[in-house]
């Protein structure tokens, strides 16, 4: 009975040896980088001068790496992204759980969340600046308000898909609600929480660029926008690429590790 279903869901893919894994990873990265590079080169020829050449961009990256202001901006922006990411993740997760658990809470917040999602980012940011001034607070509040609804959407879906049998079990064994929350509900939400964290991280960064472009004179986003206004597309790309690489390393390092640990029980 040689049964073969070509598509079996990730859970069924047999584990490969570590060595093969590494080779595949290397091949994959090489393929991706090479193809991106090819696309980039073609664009840099056809869409000149909007798309800079890889060579010019590499030089610009070098210049950025040895400039002081790059690191100053980097830390500023990382701080803003981190603050917004944490705040939006927490606010969004709490809201998402409350909405997912209770129909009335859902009825109240869902239209408000939909509206919050609908507000164009520049509007959020401008109103925050008008209300709170151009200090750090405005950016932080705008980012949190803009990102949290995304997180709560993801978490809500997962809460509603939870195994209600486990809810009943914790009720029978009189596990206190707070404990049941951590041992029964949260583990079920782990995949969604990880997705939400990825979303939150990515959106925080995208928005911080807009915030810094509109309302902050400093940071990576402001630097990118400033370069853009001066039409220095190679600088735009250089700064963006450096920051993207750094963010990626951060996400892989932190989220990747957390994920492995939290999903041990699935083997």
């Amino acid at each position, binding site marked *: 009975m040689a049964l073969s279903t070509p598509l079996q869901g990730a859970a069924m893919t047999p584990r490969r040896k570590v060595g093969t894994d590494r080779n595949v990873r290397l091949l994959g990265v090489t393929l991706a980088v090479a193809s991106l590079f090819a696309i980039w080169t073609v664009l840099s020829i056809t869409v000149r001068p909007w798309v800079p050449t890889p060579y010019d961009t590499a030089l610009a990256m070098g210049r950025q790496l040895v400039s002081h202001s790059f690191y100053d901006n980097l830390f500023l922006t990382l701080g803003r992204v981190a603050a917004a990411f944490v705040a939006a993740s927490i606010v969004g997760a709490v809201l998402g759980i409350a909405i997912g658990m209770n129909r009335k809470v859902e*009825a109240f917040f*869902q239209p408000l969340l939909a509206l919050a999602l*609908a507000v164009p980012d520049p509007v959020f940011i401008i109103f925050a600046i008008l209300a709170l001034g151009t200090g750090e607070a405005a950016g932080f509040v705008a980012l949190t308000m803009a990102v949290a609804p995304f997180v709560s*959407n993801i978490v809500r879906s997962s809460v509603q898909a939870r195994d209600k049998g486990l809810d009943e079990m914790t009720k029978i064994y009189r596990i206190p609600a707070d404990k049941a929350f951590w041992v029964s509900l949260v583990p079920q939400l782990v995949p969604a929480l990880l997705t939400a964290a990825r979303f939150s991280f990515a959106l925080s960064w995208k928005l911080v660029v807009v915030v810094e472009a509109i309302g902050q004179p400093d940071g990576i986003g402001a630097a990118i926008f400033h370069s853009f206004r001066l039409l220095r597309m190679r600088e735009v790309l250089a700064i963006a690429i450096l920051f*993207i690489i750094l963010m990626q390393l951060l996400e892989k390092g932190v989220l990747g590790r957390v994920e492995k640990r939290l999903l041990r029980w699935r083997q």
Partner: protein
Amino acid sequence: MQRENNLIISIGAVLMLLPIWWIAYRNTNFIADPFVVAAALPDFLMQPDTWSNIAITLYRVALGLAGGVVLGTLAALAMTQSKLAEQVLAIYVTTALRTPSAIAAIMALAIFRGAEIGYIVVVMFITFPFMAVGLRDGLKSADKDLAEAAQIYRLGPLRYIRHVLLPFIAPFIFSALRNAHALAWKVIVVAEIFGAARIGFGAQFDHAWEYMQMVQVHLWLLVFMAIVLAVEYGVLRVAERHVFRWRA
């Protein structure tokens, strides 16, 4: 009964915004008088221009989002089926995920010389990685038991995807879709603003903003919110209720 109660709560939540709006109007410079905005609304809605601008943006969002959803779904499937595809696509997804919307908008406009397709491509480009990430994470949590059952009964890949996998990851699909939809609207506004669109919601909004015509700004925001609410309640919720009716 339950449902009607919830509807009342929902409407109450939205109505609650009106006094907040009024207080904000009294205390800030930029918020327009809700009564003035309300008075201007009928005329605004009577103008054919209003609707043609909405229509063009709707069109851009719809096509771009559809493209993003298809692309993101394909990417997610490929990523869970092949280690190599996962590695390659992960880098593409990351690149798209981290590209600031405004930069993407300007680049697309430059590449497509301001053609209509440029706006659609931007929406697609910005929404696809979010779809891909959401679905990939959902697929990763796919139920092994059900996959085995599908294998035994030789459902084949298409039936397996359609009847086992997709329903299983439906919660992920819905949250990804909901978010991609919201994102699409945000991005189109950025794209229309930075891309110097002549028509479309973003163009009108930016124009009103440029002239500090705050009543217009508010009217456009209201229209915008109405559309997004209509999609949430007219499409997403209805579909969700249908898809999850088995939860009893």
